[in-house]
């Protein structure tokens, strides 16, 4: 996986430049953009990262930019920098699952902490997504017959009942069950159940770091 990157979008040259400088001093990779359109044209994350957006910008605002990223399914943890943390804006931001608000003037250490935390969240999220993807791929390796057996196994049916429902021999059931356990890389029924439930529960990993961390 790539190094984490901080994406800064601010129309104020001094502000984005100084933020970029601040981030690099703690060893973060930064990418700086003067406007939303400039950012959208270049944004293609290969690894974990964090977005730092100025809310008020000419053209597309920070919130609009984030919403468009969510719509594209490319959302990352975001920290909005604003001078006007008014209520309607916050509500709107929460709906889109934004991470943090930092009100100017802000504490620099606090911002850095938030950025690092957001990167951590994104890293975990990305790991989680990667893990889940691996599990999904294991399930996809199963044949149609093995999947039928798996379904009945997970519903708690014994082998005898499975053989009668599928109209196959108990021996065949045993063979298929052993195969699928091997393909899914589990050794016990309990492990198999947990794997399947975990996959079904989190169809989409949550973005809110706090929810994840708590």
């Amino acid at each position: 996986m790539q190094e984490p990157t901080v994406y800064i979008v601010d129309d104020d040259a001094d502000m984005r430049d100084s933020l970029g400088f601040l981030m690099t001093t703690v060893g973060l990779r930064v990418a700086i953009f003067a406007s939303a359109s400039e950012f959208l044209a270049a944004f293609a994350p290969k690894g974990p990262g964090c977005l730092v957006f100025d809310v008020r910008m000419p053209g597309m605002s920070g919130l609009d930019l984030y919403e468009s990223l969510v719509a594209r399914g490319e959302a990352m943890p975001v920290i909005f920098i604003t001078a006007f943390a008014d209520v309607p804006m916050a509500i709107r931001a929460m709906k889109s699952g934004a991470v943090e608000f930092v009100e100017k003037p802000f504490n620099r250490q606090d911002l850095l902490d938030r950025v690092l935390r957001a990167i951590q969240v994104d890293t975990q999220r990305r790991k989680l997504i990667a893990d889940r993807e691996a599990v999904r791929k294991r399930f996809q390796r199963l044949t149609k017959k093995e999947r039928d057996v798996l379904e009945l196994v997970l519903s708690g049916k014994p082998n005898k009942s499975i053989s009668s429902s599928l109209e196959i021999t108990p021996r065949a059931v045993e063979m298929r069950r052993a195969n699928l356990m091997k393909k899914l890389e589990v050794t016990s029924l309990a492990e198999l159940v947990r794997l399947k439930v975990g996959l079904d529960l989190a169809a989409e990993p949550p973005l809110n770091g706090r929810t994840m961390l708590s």
Partner: protein
Amino acid sequence: MIDPADLARDDSAGHFNRRFRTALVGVAVLVLLDEVVIEPPLLRLMTDAPVINVAGRQRMLSQRIAKAALALDAARSEEDRRRHSAELDEVLRTWTTAHEQLRRRDRPPSLPGANSATVDEAFDALEPSFTRIREAAARLIRDETLAAPDPAAIHDDQRTILALEGSYLVQMDRIVGLFEREARARVDWLVWTKRILTALVLVGLGGIGQFILRPATRLIERQLASLREARDVLEHRVRERTLALEAANRDLECEVRERTRADERQRTLVEQLSHVGRTTTIGEMASGLAHELNQPLGAIANYAEGCLVTLSAPEPNVDAAKAALEKILSTTLRAGQIVKRIRRFVTRHAPARERIEPNRLVSEVEEFFRDEARRRGIGLKVELASDLPWLWGDPIQIQQVLVNLVRNAFESLSHAQTPEPSVVIRTERAGADAVSFVVRDNGEGIPAERLPRVFDAYFSTRDEGMGMGLSISRTIVEGHHGQWVVESEPQVCTTFRFTLPSTGVEDAGAHGLHR
């Protein structure tokens, strides 16, 4: 002033003129009369002397005839006789010619002039004596030439001559006397006529003196007197008028001073009012300005923090820290500029009258709002005309008007859901030496019925603010002799335009200096 009596006298001058001409004609007539009446008698007088001489000589000639006749008779020798005869002949011829000359004055070769009746009568009386003497003498001369003259006849003729000579002389004396008397009478007539004419001329001259020159002199004196009077009156009036003008001038100066003072007071009031307006504006804009100031301050803090982190590292990146410190420096200056701008806008200053470059003013206002426009997502554009004249006035106040207008435009846009909110600040040339400032937005606009009231104090469409901005703006623009035009098509376009003359304020300031 002209006295009507003078006008009458003017008329009398014409009257005198006429009288004078008449008198001149009279004198001329007298002179001509002199020519006509005196000259011919004078000429005749000149012929009187020869006539009297010739008449006188006739007497002497008649005696010589008598003497010659006697001598002829007494002559001893033939030679003597012939000599006497020749003498008689010559004298007789002269005598006869002269007689004819005297007798018939109208027939040449006669003496000029004419004989009076008395003279003619005397000549008529003389005629028989003359004729007989002449005939006797002629016979004597003829007889002498004869070979055998008749002594009795000669003797007879001699007696006749001697006998008639006496009466002839008497009559001729009378004729000469008549000639002399007539000549003397003519001389007397001439003398008297001349005297009368001279007297008439003198009377005429006296008349001219009495009836023309004297009244004319009096008239001239009167006119001179009235002229002097008129001159005195005029001088008096000029003095009075001069005094009145001086007084008026003093009043005018006073008024000018008063006006200048009033102008200064007015300017001071406008400045006080506009200062309150600016302070209010800055107060209302405080949060925005704080944000604008926070940008560079935040950036500075970022750089500083970054420097701290960098320099705290085991192997600090000095170059990076140095670059950051340079950034801190330039950003600090930027923040300072903002503070300076605010302070200049708010600081109380004496009403200024200086040259204003319209485009620079607009650029500064744009700077003022650049950040706010960015934050509000409003496109703020500036369109500057080239070749604008300079203006005279208070740049801060004009700037204040523009700030008010732009703020109003921003407010109007924040109320309207305009898809592409924009505000344009323009400068335009208006005629030869005036400049129009235009602020145009595409916000909610002003309904037609509210347009006339936009400049009223406390009339505000905004929730915040006192509604003083446009009222103060109007006062400022009017203080600069400017004019307003406001147009609005709600939701489409609203335009505030004020036009300032390039000379107006300068004139207003200078009118107290020249008079």
